[in-house]
């Protein structure tokens, strides 16, 4: 053995063991960190003593970019934030800008937004269940969920032509109306989906290993959950029925009936149950909105004075040309068509509470666009949640928080 170790042993009191922490660098390239999350772990055997998340590997400066694009163009940026449920990001951007512009959105557009928002919730939760189960080792659930998510993505493709980055919601409404075909597909899907959820539940809900791996793991008390800023299913798993859809209804959520599930203990299993019930509720919401859609047949889906229709005519800006170096960052003339002021909008995205704070200086580009992303806050809670747990639990905790790094890093 090398001499330094002997020296240390000699110096130390013989009754005292030399304890040196074992450091493990988990990520940014790791199969179960859901992207490029890096965690520096200090371990004692397999037990985590300290955990320091390092983020920013996917930082694209969306907030800075948005200050240099006009309002419509920022919608496209929003797709790239939480790319699992990009419609949710579209909606919150549009809601904030509509508040700023004082636009009134037609009812049909609000219904359509609610439908696609809930579709995004289902597809996001399906992906969450798939990856969470895979992280814990249940491979079959993963593929079952992907099979059904595929159907939703196909419907999305019919709606707007894109499967992942939709850009479907526009300021003042939505881009396109649903065709008869889509409504039929959705009816069929909502009819079958509850049975599919039952199928996943039969696979894992009675499985003893699954229960052992999720029950009593990362218990969050209600006070702790609020203190950590957790929102969405994670907060509701701790027993607080805070849901933006109920507390500050937007779009058509005041028209539909649904329940907000809450957990009892606030452990990983409760959060799993909450999300499973949420999927059923989303299914119900889509169903109701589809029925209401018949009442608004033929109505417009975009507000009359939406900038999507008006800005090009009123402003008559030259077509944005790709700058040789800067690509499509648009720096056209500044024309005062937007009211000066600020607006704040928040929605219940599948991951949690997603908020946008926009400050306008009257030009066609936002002065400041602040994004409050759920994953960002949830990742900041990982050190608190993992204390005293094992590596295997850490993986389960990352899964149960449902983080997306595009969402966190912006």
């Amino acid at each position, binding site marked *: 053995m090398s001499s330094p170790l002997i020296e240390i042993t000699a110096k130390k009191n013989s009754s005292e063991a030399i304890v040196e922490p074992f450091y493990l660098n988990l990520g940014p390239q790791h199969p179960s960190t859901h992207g490029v999350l890096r965690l520096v772990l200090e371990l004692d055997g397999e037990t985590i003593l300290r955990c320091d998340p390092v983020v920013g590997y996917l*930082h694209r400066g969306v907030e*800075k970019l948005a200050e240099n694009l006009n309002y419509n163009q920022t919608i496209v940026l929003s797709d790239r934030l939480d790319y699992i449920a990009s419609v949710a990001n579209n909606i919150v951007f549009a809601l904030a800008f509509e508040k700023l512009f004082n636009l009134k959105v037609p009812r049909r557009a609000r219904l359509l937004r609610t439908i696609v928002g809930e579709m995004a919730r289902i597809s996001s939760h399906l992906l969450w269940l798939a990856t969470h189960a895979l992280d814990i080792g249940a491979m079959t659930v993963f593929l079952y969920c992907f099979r059904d998510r595929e159907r939703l993505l196909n419907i999305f493709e019919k709606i707007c032509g894109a499967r992942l980055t939709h850009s479907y919601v526009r300021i003042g409404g939505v881009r396109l109306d649903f065709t008869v075909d889509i409504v039929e597909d959705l009816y069929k899907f909502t009819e079958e989906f509850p049975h599919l959820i039952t199928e996943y539940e039969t696979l894992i809900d009675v499985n003893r290993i699954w229960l052992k791996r999720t029950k009593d793991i990362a218990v969050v008390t209600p006070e702790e959950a609020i203190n950590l*800023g957790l929102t969405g299913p994670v907060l509701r798993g701790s027993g607080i029925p805070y849901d933006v859809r109920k507390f500050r209804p937007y779009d058509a959520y005041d028209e539909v009936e649904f329940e907000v599930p809450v957990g009892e203990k606030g452990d990983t299993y409760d959060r799993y149950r909450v999300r499973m019930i949420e999927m059923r509720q989303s299914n119900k919401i889509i169903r109701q909105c589809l029925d209401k859609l018949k009442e608004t047949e033929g109505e417009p889906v975009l507000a009359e004075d939406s900038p999507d229709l008006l800005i090009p005519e009123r402003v008559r800006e030259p077509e944005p040309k790709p700058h040789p170096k800067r690509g499509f960052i648009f720096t056209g003339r500044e024309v005062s068509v937007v009211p000066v002021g600020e607006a704040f909008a928040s929605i219940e995205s599948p991951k949690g509470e997603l908020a946008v704070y926009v400050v306008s*200086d009257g030009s066609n580009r936002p002065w400041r666009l602040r994004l409050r992303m759920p994953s960002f806050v949830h990742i900041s809670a990982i050190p608190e949640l993992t204390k005293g747990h094992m590596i295997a639990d850490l993986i389960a905790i990352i899964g149960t928080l449902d983080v997306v790094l595009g969402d966190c890093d912006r």
Partner: protein
Amino acid sequence: MKDLLSVIRDEFGKFILEVREEDLPTVIIKRDGFLEFIDFLRKEGFNHLLDLCAVDYLNYKPEKKIERFEVVYHLYSIPKRELLRVKVPIAESDCWQYSLTSFWKAANWFERECFDMFGIRFKGHPDLRRLLMPEDWEGHPLRKDYPVELPEEKEWKAYRKFKTKAKGAQ
């Protein structure tokens, strides 16, 4: 909400710069009385720190701001279902603000990000490091005098090193 705002006006009159009610009830308050004010709000039921961010008002045309920066807090009261915005102007020459980490653990990363992007220091923060940008990054990207694209000689050191290495390999 109206009652609360009038109470705020009475109790914190000497610190309050302005109370607005445009899209949201907004309180603009001096930095000095800020911590007591937040403590008061917490007792009033504003238990959820929804958002914490800064805005840079350098050369802001529509109105003359008192100071260059503003730190904006969005607080929500889950029991009362009320939303409140609190703004604190911060001078460029005296660029710091009190940390809220003793009230909310959630403030930890918000403040780190704010420091990273605007260079506003938070007094009382346990671990104020850069968050999204690399540790050896120079400048604070979300300030208005920071360009969208840096000239080549000012690019991040590590990136420049990689670039020369890649060129050498070709």
